[in-house]
């Protein structure tokens, strides 16, 4: 099953490689990883998407917690949560396809953020599955590049991951 693990980690050099190294050393699957500082500059927030049986996910969270730099973590899959990913897609356009792409972008609530005579860049956020649907919906031959941030997430309600 797919799990989104959200981690508060010391904002120190090497902290990211401790997490990445743990996954490769123990043979855990890592689908995506995003990391950025938080409002407290001494802490980074890391969001990691992984897949595995319940036993493996249990080991992953235990092993992550064992890293000295990891302050706290939650498995977002354990509770109701919101998931968002940012995507930018550069698409080859012709006079005939421009309107169709604009229409598609509008349906998915995307924005055109760069225009040249032959290309569009479409920006879109949403759960990963929505971004997948957009990609599937346009002609694959017209895609020049796709840039995705990897999902981040937050739990709903008053509960939160903080010190």
């Amino acid at each position, binding site marked *: 099953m797919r799990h989104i693990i959200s981690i508060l980690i*010391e904002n120190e*050099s*090497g902290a990211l*490689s*401790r997490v990445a*190294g743990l996954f490769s*050393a123990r043979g855990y699957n890592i689908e995506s990883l995003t990391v950025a500082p938080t409002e407290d500059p001494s802490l980074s927030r890391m969001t990691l998407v992984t897949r595995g049986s319940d*036993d493996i996910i*249990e*080991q992953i969270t*235990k*092993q992550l*917690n*064992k890293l*000295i*730099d*990891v*302050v*706290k973590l939650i498995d977002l899959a354990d509770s109701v949560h919101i998931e968002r990913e940012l995507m930018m897609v550069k698409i080859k356009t012709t006079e005939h396809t421009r309107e169709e792409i604009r229409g598609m972008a509008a349906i998915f609530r995307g924005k055109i953020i760069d225009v040249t005579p032959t290309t569009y860049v479409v920006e879109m956020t949403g759960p990963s599955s929505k971004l997948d649907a957009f990609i599937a919906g346009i002609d694959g031959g017209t895609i020049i590049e796709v840039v995705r941030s990897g999902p981040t997430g937050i739990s709903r309600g008053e509960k939160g991951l903080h*010190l």
Partner: protein
Amino acid sequence: MELNGAQIVIQSLKDEGVEYIFGYPGGAVLHLYDAIFQQDDVKHILVRHEQGATHAADGYARATGKPGVVLVTSGPGATNAVTGIATAYMDSIPMVIISGQVPSPVIGSDAFQEVDMVGITRPCVKHNFLVKDVTKLAETIKKAFYVATTGRPGPVVVDVPKDITDPGIKVPYKYPKKVSIRSYNPAVTGHKGQIKKAVDLLLTAQKPIIYSGGGVVLGEASKELTEFAHTLGFPVTNTLMGLGAYPATDKQFVGMLGMHGTYEANMAMHESDVIIAIGARFDDRVTGKLDEFCPHAQIIHIDVDPASISKTVKVAIPIVGEVKPVLEQMLEIIRENKKKPSKKALENWWNQIEQWRSVKCLEYDRESRLIKPQYVIEQLYEVTKGDAYITSDVGQHQMWAAQYYPFDKPRRWINSGGLGTMGFGLPAAIGVKLAFPDSEVACVTGDASIQMCIQELSTALQYKTPIKIINLNNSYMGMVRQWQEFSYESRYSHSYMDTIPEFVKLAEAYGHVGMRIDKPEEVRPALEEAFAMKDRTVFLDILTDRTENVYPMIEAGKGHHDMTLRVASGTSTDRELA
């Protein structure tokens, strides 16, 4: 007080109460060695290879319970230390390794003797630090000791760039009495509800067994374990790492379990209905085939490391905490409880265990005209009155030492269990002897293992650490040969060394006493003579039966009940070898 970085390192070690540093100098640590030269409080032991430094510090740590301290230079000094760091990591041994690093401004430029020590050691340390600011140096060293010695212990590396130890830069020095790390709070006592549940389960058990490991030694909980076992009357088995945590001569002890464990220990595990695992981690050498591991048992597991719980074997009642306080908590509840273990059930269970015991799985051919390695260990036990510190290398000799030297006290049996590092025994023995100069220290080794760190014989002379080296010489990497006999139709691929040094001359060249023993009747007098030489290191090169195998054995991929016992003739099935 204002000190430079080099002085801060040495003063911090002194304030931490460090007695010995095991190390080897080099370019990146020259400032540090100059600071060592100018003081006498912290004694430096100069080894002959950095691997030896880590194993000696490790032996010191295992024997004393105090952290071992290592100092190595950058580059090859650091990489040579990695095997010893990994050895300590696998067995949860507290150790602080200070490694020199090239000056901060040239880090990343492939400078002379530069290696990314923090990167290389990351998977085999509990934590590591790269010091970037001399004003944080003392605090970082304190943190290193704090992390290394608390919770589940382990090695911690502090990588110190050369400019940080610059004698020209002085900063105020204060060694913190205490440090806290917001992201590191290991559990001490166990959850009361879980402990209560565990006791309830234990008191209803019909065929219980206590399976205890190295955590009991590390957690200084031998006394509590013994009291716990005596209160309940349950059988006790120890892992290789746990030997000595429960007195081996006690009648409730059924021997070591696992791949080369006793028949009674493994059968009792297999048939038991309730197992309490105490400071043990269900290692593959203990469990054998996981699907067939203890099929009838409900398992209680006490461990300070939550990640050890349900890692390979799912347990019914996990208890996270230090072994000693948790056992104390349990004992209190057991004493207050009106319910007692069923006498009738225990009597039946012990009758069954006695039947398994009567198989006498550790018997061997005592009439042989060749020296049997088991006999040597038994004689070693008698000559040292069972009270020596025994270090070992890795292989058959290690298993025989574990099987035939019953340890009654913790911290007496010192071996590389997790990583299985050949070359461990000799330097470890030096570390032990430094810690306990008045105790007997013997290194049980083999002709292959001893050659992996033999250069430390020179260190043993320099620091006058008279140890006894019991070399069970069968001209083979015995354990490799045994596996090749069992699993590869006796194709002994490169497990035999055609040339082995004359160990007697080699020992003499290093300034020690060498003895060669090739008849069974010479073993006892030679051991007595060796141990009578109180101030000399003696190398006993004992030529043993080359065909001897370690029994019982659970071959890889088999369950506890599927043991290979000794064949009737008592030796290897491969007669050609003889």
